[in-house]
């Protein structure tokens, strides 16, 4: 069984909120340059990381199936005069990097996961197995532009972050357990990445499979 206590939960259910509105809503919490230049997912991730991220952070696990799809779409459309700025920020794990570079804060481990049918389970296992005493787990999606119509981008914006620790303390908001599923059932229907977000956003308890290998028990204090 894998077990961690969690705290500092931050969520943002931006849904179909337009990009300009998200930027206007979130930019005040950042440096002016970040507020102007960050991707929408960078802004969302930066916003939810506010509680969980501190200067002692040693490990960040980040999950996003689609990443910076708005920037990716713009980069694709910049050819044949490809934009260097769009290129570097379209690289998958840039949302967290934008935040950390803005803070000039190094981190020993940064482990970005890039989708998959059981993304929530893979991210949880990755975060729990990280050797650091405290691990920040975050993720999300930005609502895409033209790529959404082809199911190449998310149709909604959301973001979450939480800190996972080995021991309970005054800040603990709950406990996560992953129990191995002994009799693997190929028909298991794991919760989706957005459904994982909904559990955190709604502060809901959950007990059920998150992959063919793992059963999740999410308990809020």
């Amino acid at each position, binding site marked *: 069984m894998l077990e961690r206590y969690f705290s500092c939960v931050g969520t943002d259910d931006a849904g179909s909120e337009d990009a300009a509105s998200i930027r206007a809503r979130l930019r005040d*919490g950042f*440096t002016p340059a970040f507020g102007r230049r960050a991707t929408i997912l960078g802004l969302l991730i930066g916003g939810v990381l506010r509680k969980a*991220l*501190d*200067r*002692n952070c*040693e490990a960040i696990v980040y999950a996003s*199936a*689609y*990443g910076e799809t708005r920037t*990716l779409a713009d*980069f*694709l*459309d910049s*050819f*044949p005069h*490809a*934009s*260097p700025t769009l*290129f*570097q*920020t*379209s*690289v*998958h*794990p*840039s949302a967290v*990097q934008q935040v*950390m*570079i803005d*803070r*000039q*804060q*190094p*981190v*020993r*481990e*940064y*482990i*970005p*996961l*890039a*989708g*998959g*049918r*059981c993304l929530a389970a*893979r991210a949880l*296992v*990755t975060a729990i*197995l990280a*050797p*650091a005493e405290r691990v920040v787990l975050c993720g999300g999606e930005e609502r895409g532009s033209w790529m959404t119509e*082809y*199911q*190449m981008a998310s149709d909604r914006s959301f973001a979450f972050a939480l800190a996972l620790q080995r021991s309970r303390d005054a800040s603990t908001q709950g406990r996560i357990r992953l129990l191995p*599923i002994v009799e*693997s059932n190929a028909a298991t229907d794991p919760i989706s990445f957005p459904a994982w977000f909904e559990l955190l956003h709604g502060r809901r308890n959950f007990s059920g499979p998150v*992959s*063919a*290998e793992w059963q999740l028990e999410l308990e809020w204090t």
Partner: protein
Amino acid sequence: MTSLLGWDESPSTLTPTDSSPVQLAACGCISALGNAAETHEALLRGERALALKPVYGSSGGDPVPLALLPGRSLDETSPPSWMPAVKRLMRECPDAPWGGARHPVFVTSSNFGVGNLFSFRRAGTLSHLDFGTPEACVAFIAGELGWGGNVTILSHACVSANLGLVLAARQIALEIADEALVFSFDFLSPFVAGGFHALKILNSEAPAPYQARDFGSIGLGDGAAFAVLRKPGPGWIIASQTMYNEMHHFTAFPSDGAGFAACIEPLVRVASGRRLWIKGHGTGTLEAGRLEAEAFGRACPASPLVGWKGSLGHTLGSSGLVELAVALESLRSGRIPGTVGSEAPTFSEKVSLGPIFDSSFDGVVCASNAFGGAHAALLLCHA
């Protein structure tokens, strides 16, 4: 302590080490020069796979140094033109119920099927979209190779392969997995060539890693590789792995080279008493090459440094694993390819331009870097 922006600003106290030894039970690769053994032999002969090709493929553009798989075009096809080569590579991989509960797969890439997304946007052919996201592209590969669903997809630019090795090692160390497969790939497209060309580091000049010259340049290459990891046993082991993310700038490192040192020095301590050589990242950019060469010179002054991207090109997210496969061939044979494509003067006297024929080395440190000041390295040695 809380800043004006509302962040906790307590001082940083990063711990620098991470170690879970594992057996490297099997490892193979494909590059523009062939499989691991063929690539190793070609590098020993000083062959250069890079050749000038139009940066936008059939759409033209400036000539830039690219090392594509033989017969492969930069323009992506549907299904992807690289899949037959991947299937040939994976015939070298030991059979196991990959993707099963006790046999996880870690797939890593920087670009996945973005070449298909680019082709879709240019030509409008919908079938390209079947490979256009990381998830879709990996689902295609998994289907072709018969993997189960226990697949973790990772993407951290040019240290992607190293992350796969770290996570695989952890699952084995904690006995969540019996064996783990790490598969890494990156195949070029106008998307990625155009991106690096826009950054002006992919130009018409051939890369010369660690060479002290007036301009920097890189080349890009196709690459894919796999590694099978097991509990530590006889033979070759990955004794330790490290990571460090400077988060200073997307495409530049701090001038003190502290990030290189933070990643390398813990490995050198683990390797104490061993006779090491270093396989560096060495893309051909000037500042990163100088910082890397100097950091290795300080951390392990007796160890020769080589880099192979002057021949293979930078195979991006797969480079850590492609070059690990070649490093394994080198350790096995006692014949280490030199820094192909570079000439004196170099940033450090420890840079070896020619091959090294010496079977007394008993370990190699393999290092990788990426956007965002990401560093990753590992120590490969005998058990």
